């Protein structure tokens, strides 16, 4: 659309690089360096070898934990997508309620993890609000176990991560020319078909960004599963913490490397999807 934007990215233009330099240096010193040091431990602790990696294929605990972490991330990503997309749509469609919706979306950002944990316990507990209400309504005879189950983890993580799904989608929806929906309608498309054939495909870059963010963030979750999750729920981050605590730093570093590699692989895969890589570049304004 805007051709001049592409020209500005010519190799001769060093201004963007210079503008980013302080942050790049900061990230190099305080992020890249520690990460590299940490990754080095996976091949150097206790002695130089690849034995930590070689052991992973036979490591049943690691495999179960890894699969459980991936599974939880998938569920949470789907959950945020299904719940978040309509909210994003509402956010963009209504003018009067947009600020209210936005505040409700951002509220979790401003609430400490402790307050949220209490809230979930109060809500989802064996004698919590949900159970008491269902019992009072006669819908249940005995309270349901929600807290301290994988479902509780998923609910809590969906709650925390919803904004990361809603905001990129809303951003993508907002960038869709409103006349496109009118054009579709005028050309004979029912509201559902307009959504399905025009709005949804055009919002895909936002969906991809949201899915990517939520999935990658969900991979690293730690406090929430420990607090509200089920008795047999161990995430990769929890396993890493446990191994750090046991002073198996080489093994912990190996697990961290796996986590990092998984996240990077997913980012790379998303980036290569046709149109979406472009969309990321377009959205960075």
């Amino acid at each position, binding site marked *: 659309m805007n051709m001049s934007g592409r020209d500005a990215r010519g190799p001769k233009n060093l201004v963007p690089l210079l503008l980013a330099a302080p942050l790049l240096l900061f990230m190099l010193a305080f992020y890249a360096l520690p990460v590299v040091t940490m990754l080095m431990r996976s091949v150097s602790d206790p002695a130089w070898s690849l034995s930590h990696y070689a052991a992973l294929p036979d490591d049943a605990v690691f495999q179960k934990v890894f699969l459980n972490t991936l599974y939880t991330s998938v569920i949470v990503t789907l959950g945020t997508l299904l719940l978040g997309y309509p909210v994003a749509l509402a956010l963009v469609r209504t003018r009067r309620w947009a600020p209210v919706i936005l505040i409700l979306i951002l509220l979790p950002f401003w609430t400490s993890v402790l307050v949220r944990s209490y809230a979930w316990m109060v809500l989802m507990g064996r004698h919590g609000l949900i159970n008491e209400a269902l019992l009072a309504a006669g819908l249940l005879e005995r309270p349901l176990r929600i807290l301290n189950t994988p479902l509780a983890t998923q609910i809590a993580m969906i709650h925390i991560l919803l904004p990361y799904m809603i905001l990129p989608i809303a951003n993508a929806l907002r960038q869709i020319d409103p*006349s496109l929906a009118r054009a*579709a*309608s005028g*050309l*004979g*498309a029912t509201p559902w078909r307009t959504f399905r054939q025009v709005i949804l495909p055009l919002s895909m870059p936002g969906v991809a960004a949201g899915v990517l963010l939520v999935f990658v963030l969900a991979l690293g979750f730690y406090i929430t599963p420990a607090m509200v999750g089920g008795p047999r729920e161990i995430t990769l981050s929890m396993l890493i913490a446990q191994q750090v605590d046991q002073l198996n730093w080489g093994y912990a570093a190996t697990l961290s490397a796996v986590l990092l590699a998984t996240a990077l692989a997913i980012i790379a895969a998303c980036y290569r999807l046709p149109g979406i890589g472009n969309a990321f570049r377009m959205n960075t304004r």
Partner: protein
Amino acid sequence: MAGAGRGASVSLTDLEKSYDRVAAVAGVSLDIRSGEFLTLLGPSGSGKTTTLMMIAGFEMPTAGDIAIDAKSVVAMPPYRRNIGMVFQNYALFPHLTVAENIGFPLKQRGVAKAERAKLVGEALELVHLPGYGERYPRQLSGGQQQRVALARAIVFKPRLLLMDEPLGALDKQLRENLQLEMRRLHADLGITFIYVTHDQEEALTMSDRIAVMNEGLVAQVGRPEDLYDRPSSRFVAGFIGESNFLPAIVRGIEDDVVVAECDGALLRALCPGRMSPSPLAAGEKVMLTTRPERLRFADGAWHSPSSSGAPQNRLSVTVTEAVFAGERCRYMLQAGDGTAMVLKEPSSAAIRRRAVGEQAEIAWSVADTILV
């Protein structure tokens, strides 16, 4: 069906639209005939686009009725109205190819794939873009995008095509080409076009009839030459073409001609804007209007064809400015009472050019003098 031709007839009755109690359209009644090319012309904020959007169904009227082929469509959602529409910014779907864009309305109507491909091909031929089907909109120039939008709006053979300033974003050369193409398309298809523009020249060139809109109302409807020659109001006279305005006082009425005094001279004028001149009383202050190119210097060598034999108005003036503009000369004149006027004269080496400060007598036909 009420409309016998290929085009739909559209009838607007007391149509109103208000936003927060501010009226954008304040009571428009208009009958658009089957197969007609009608332009809604007006400055921005005059309500022309809002009127169009109500016909398309994107805006709900606050009051009044819209009937297409004598059937009210007010309660009908846009996707059931079967109206073609071209937007100012083209509104092409960026994620679909040209062929998919044009095929979109066909797909909604359940047209089979093979048939769709055939119709899309024909539509591309019609807008002179054969072979462009696989491209994406962003790979096309503005003019090409406009043709695609046009093809998409007509491929499903609607009986009515709405266009909202479709040429507004294009340069002058391209605009003129496309104006001609749209005229041709209109003639070929025979369907009803409703066209919105603020460009009076465009409106005059293309339309069968023009509805001039101002402040949410239709100021005048008519053929381009009617509007130009017989504006019914000062607004129309001023908005379409250039006009001189002469303040005058009514002195009498002769049949359908008003006699009015202006700067000591008695001028005769027609008054097409009124049902009859009878309500006018002697002594009433009125405004007369006339076109600059219809004035001439009374002692000049050049005579306009319209002037021969017809009754004339005459006025004494002083030349205050003289501009030679190639094909014509343009003079600023001042009457004795201070009224400024413009006179345009075809340039010719045979005609003496007037100097600034020169006294002159100008004359023009009574038929070109309108009381507004």
